C-alpha cells in the first residue's frame, strides 16, 4: 500500500517536474537575468517542493506553490533581501508623503518600441523589485493582490512599484529613441 502510494507520488512528482521546469526556469531567469542562477534557483525550488511533495501534490495548483518558493528563494538571498526591503520601504515612504503616481499620466505619449532589444535591456537594468512585479504581473499574469501576497507587501506598494518600473522603462525607451533620432544617419 505504502509502496504504491510512494510510486504514485513519485510518478506525479516526475510529471510535475517535467511539465513545470521550463516555466520555472524562465521565471527564474526573468527575475534574475542570470541563467546559471536561474537554473540553481529552479533546482532548489524543486528540491524544496520534493521535501513536501506529499502535501503539495494534493494542492489545486502545485505550480503556484513552486512559484512562491522560487520567489522567496530569490528574495531570501541576503543581499537581495536588503535591496528588496529598501525598495519596498521607499515605496512605503512615498505612500506616507502622499506621493501620487497618477501625476504622471498613464496615457502619456511614448516612443514607439520598435527595437525590443532596447526594452529587454531596460528590463534587465530595472531594480529587482520593480522587475519582479512586472514579471509576476505581465509574464505570470498574477493580480496585484496575488503579487502583494507573494512579496509580503500591500497591493498599493505593488501598484507603485509597477508604475515606477513602467515609468523607468518608458524613460529609457524614449531616451534611446531620442538618441537614435539625434544620431540617425541622413540616409536613413
Amino acid at each position, binding site marked *: 500500500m505504502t509502496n504504491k502510494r510512494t510510486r504514485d507520488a513519485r510518478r506525479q512528482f516526475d510529471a510535475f517536474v517535467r511539465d513545470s521546469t521550463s516555466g520555472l526556469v524562465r521565471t527564474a531567469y526573468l527575475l534574475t537575468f542570470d*541563467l546559471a542562477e536561474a*537554473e*540553481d534557483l529552479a533546482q532548489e525550488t524543486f528540491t524544496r517542493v520534493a521535501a513536501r511533495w506529499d502535501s503539495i501534490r494534493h494542492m489545486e495548483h502545485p505550480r503556484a506553490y513552486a512559484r512562491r518558493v522560487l520567489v522567496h528563494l530569490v528574495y531570501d538571498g541576503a543581499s537581495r533581501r536588503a535591496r528588496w526591503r529598501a525598495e519596498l520601504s521607499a515605496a512605503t515612504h512615498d505612500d506616507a508623503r502622499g506621493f501620487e503616481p497618477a501625476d504622471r499620466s498613464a496615457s502619456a505619449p511614448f516612443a514607439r518600441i520598435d527595437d525590443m532589444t532596447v526594452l529587454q535591456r531596460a528590463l534587465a537594468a530595472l531594480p529587482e523589485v520593480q522587475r519582479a512585479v512586472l514579471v509576476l504581473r*505581465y509574464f505570470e499574469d498574477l493580480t496585484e493582490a496575488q503579487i502583494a501576497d507573494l512579496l509580503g507587501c500591500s497591493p498599493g506598494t505593488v501598484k507603485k512599484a509597477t508604475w515606477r518600473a513602467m515609468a523607468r522603462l518608458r524613460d529609457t525607451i524614449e531616451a534611446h529613441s531620442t538618441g537614435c533620432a539625434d544620431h540617425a544617419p541622413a540616409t536613413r
Partner: protein
Amino acid sequence: MPTDTFETELRAAFDDIAAGIPDAAAARVAEHRYAPRSRRRVVIPAACVAIAVAGAGAGALVLNRQSSHAGRAAHAGTGAQAPRVQLIAQVRKAVAAANGDMFHAVSTAAGAPRGERWASADGSRLHIAVFDAAGTKTEDILYVTTSPGHVDATVVNDANHTWSQESDVLPPVPAGATPAQGPAVAKNVAQGPTSAAQIEQMLVADGFTKTGTGVVDGMATYTISATLGDTTIAIAVDDSTNLPVHVHIGQPANPSIVDSSIQWLPVDQSLLTLTPPAGYTHVANADAS
C-alpha cells in the same frame, strides 16, 4: 503609446526573452534526481529497530538531496549564487573540489547491519557492502544510474551464494529510508550519506551553522549542524581540509541513529564495479533483507 499597447509590448518582450532561454537549461534542472518525500519519511528509532529485527528493512531518515547545482556546473564562473555563511561555503568548496575523489563511508545504526559504501564523484555509481554483527560481509550491491530516475542494481548475496540483476529500482536513498522509499534491495542496512554530490546539496539546502569543535580520529575538526524537524544532523569537518569526516544523525529520543565515518579516496574503479563470484547462482532476487 497607450498603456495597453505598452503592456502588450512588455508581455511580448518577456515572451521573447523567455523563448531565448535554451532548452538545455530546463533539461539540466529536470535531469536531477529529486526525491519526493512521503509523510512517513522520518521513522522513530524504535520503529526502525523493530522493523529491522522483523527483517522488513530498517528505516530512519531521509537526506535524499542529490545532485550538484545544475546552474553552477553548467555556467561555472558566471553569475552569483545567493551568499551563504562563509564557513559552509568553504566546506562546499572543499567537497566540490574533492568530487574527483571516491566517496567512502562506513555507517552504523542501532538495530541495523553495518553498511559500507563507495560512490563515484557524482554518485551515479554506488557500491554498498552489508556486514552482519560479527563483521562478516553478507551482501554486495552495486547501483548504477542509467538515466535520470533509472537505476539498475546488481546484488550479490554472500550468505547463500546467489546473485541477481534488477532494473529500474528506486534510487538508493541515503541515511536509511522507509521500505517504500528505499531501494528495492539492501533495505536492512545502516545508511548514511551516499556521495559528495549529496553532501554538497545537503549543505546548500539545510541551513547548517557551526556548533562546535572536536577531534575525530586524531584530526582537529569543527562541527556544523542543522535541524530538520526533530532530527539533528551534525557533520564533523576536518579543520585542515574543510572536508566532512563524520556525519551523525540523531533525534531526542535516540541521540544516535546513524553514524557515518567518511573518507575521500583516490578513485578505485574496481570498487565501482561488481562481478558475481564464480559459482554463485543467478536468481531472480538475491536480496537478503
